[in-house]
């Protein structure tokens, strides 16, 4: 049985909005666990409740209902955060500080001595490729540079549990690759990582397990393999022949038709494979290829997003 680092049970969060203080329920009973040593991806569309969940975990907002436990620690007590590292979404820092000064400040808030911070800061700045910019004030940093210094400050205390809210945001492909390598390195050291990201391909590549949140509820949790098994396989068929004839042949079937690289492309669910093949065979069009489309987390995500809320 894996050791549980984070356990969230039935987390509910209401906010008061507007002049009359109308209650809006943002989290509607979120439950999931994160196991020691794994990378857990937390994905969902904008406004689904990812950041509110993270804020509830860190004690920035008080849950309306529900229980949050981290390795037995209560994160509403400051001391419980000694072995936590956190990167907020769109990192906000002190623009009058330099990158190095920021790391020293964050390290001191963890109770580290300056001599200890000095060596850690040097190593982290090198790791995130910010050594040359360490003496530049943060107000002059680009978004990507802020993201990299943000990750460095999240790791300054060598945390056991790392929470990253959109760690790839604002990074170019090289930067994203470096951060992915960094995250995997932390995992190899036995750290536990909880991350949220819109870049589903990155989540798929990095995460051991994924939780999908929609409209304040976690609708799916599992390993990538488990989740992808649930979605239907789509097929793609490429055809040569007049487009109109193909369109007439598959009329009445739930098929997407488009032109692709000079061919007519049909996309359909695997349940329709026989009927589509049969329909096309009766036409003048010639089948060039027929292959399953790769299942992806993005596909699952889009599929779930199309579902009505009542069915979740």
């Amino acid at each position, binding site marked *: 049985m894996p050791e549980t680092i984070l356990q969230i049970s039935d987390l509910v969060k209401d*906010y008061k909005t507007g002049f009359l203080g109308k209650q809006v329920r943002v989290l509607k009973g979120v439950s999931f666990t994160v196991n020691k040593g794994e990378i857990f991806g937390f994905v969902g569309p904008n406004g689904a409740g990812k950041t509110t969940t993270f*804020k509830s975990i*860190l*004690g*920035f*907002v*008080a849950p309306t209902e529900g229980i949050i436990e981290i390795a037995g620690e209560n994160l509403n007590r*400051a*001391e*419980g*955060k*000694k072995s*936590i*590292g*956190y990167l*907020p979404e769109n*990192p*906000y*820092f*002190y623009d*009058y*500080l330099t990158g190095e*000064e920021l790391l020293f*400040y*964050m390290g*001191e*808030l*963890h*109770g580290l001595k300056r001599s200890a911070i000095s060596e850690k800061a040097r190593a982290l700045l090198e790791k995130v490729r910010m050594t040359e910019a360490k003496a530049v004030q943060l107000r002059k940093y680009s978004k990507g540079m802020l993201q990299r210094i943000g990750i460095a*400050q999240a790791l300054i*205390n060598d945390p056991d549990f790392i*929470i990253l809210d959109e760690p790839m945001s604002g990074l170019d492909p090289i930067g994203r690759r470096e951060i992915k390598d960094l995250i995997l390195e932390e995992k190899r050291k036995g750290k536990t990582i909880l991350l949220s990201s819109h870049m589903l391909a990155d989540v798929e590549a990095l995460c051991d397990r994924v939780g999908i949140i929609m409209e304040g509820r976690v609708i799916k949790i599992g390993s990538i393999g488990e989740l992808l098994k649930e979605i239907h396989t789509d097929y793609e068929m490429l055809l040569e022949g007049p487009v109109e004839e193909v369109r007439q042949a598959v009329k009445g079937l739930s098929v997407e038709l488009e032109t692709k690289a000079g061919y007519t492309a049909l996309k359909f669910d695997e349940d329709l494979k026989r009927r589509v093949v049969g329909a096309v065979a009766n036409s003048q069009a010639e089948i060039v290829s027929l292959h399953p489309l790769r299942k992806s987390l993005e596909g699952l995500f889009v599929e779930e997003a199309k579902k009505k809320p009542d069915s979740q």
Partner: protein
Amino acid sequence: MRRILSVAHNTFIEAIRDRVLYSLILFAVLMILSSLVFASISAEQYNKIVKDLGLTAISVIGILISVFLGIGLVYKEVEKKTVYNIFSKPVKRFEFIIGKYLGLAVTLFVITAGMAFILFILVVYIEIKYEGLINFYYGGHFYAEFFNAVYFEYLEFLVVIGIALVFSSFTTPVMSALFTFFLIAIGRFSSDIRLFAEEIKSPVSGFLSEVLYRVIPNLEKFNVRSEAVYGNVIDPGLIVYTTVYAVIYTAALLLLSIIIFERKEFK
């Protein structure tokens, strides 16, 4: 304790790297130097004019800095969301409040000491200029009241920072500034308000003025400029009393800020 000092250090750095601060300090220096012009008008009152104008400049600029930096102490961190970085670390809310206060208090100390030093040099220069060096040397000048007046001004700044910090914990800078200046005005005139209410002889106004007098710090207690200007000795008992008065009010204001901030959510 270390975390409080870290927050204080960062607050101090923020203040001294704020360009608005230098504009205010420059204004203070100009005000102090302008006293030279007025001093030349009246040869007999030269040193009194320089001291009076100079101490007034320190008071005005110190209050302005206390208010304008104080109202943003907490608000800016919440608005710019730098609180996420602070409170994802093992920092208690009261450590943050005390650290922010301490940082600005140290900033005001440095600025007040700097302005007082400039004024002191100016006062000595003026007195040497008008009395001549030998008369100045044997004249027996007492500057204790001058430094006591500066110390009292600094105590007032500490209380004003506390007031600004309370409002900064829950409202916008504009409202914080309005409320803080309103309380400074009442604090400066609370004795007069009480006397005025006694003249009206209305139970309601009497009650209200008594509440204001008791609750809001009487900032006139920190004004000993006339003693400094006329060289009147300030009783050591008064210095102790005023210090304790400032400490009690500052502690109460800090406690109020902590209570308000403990309940705050960072959305």
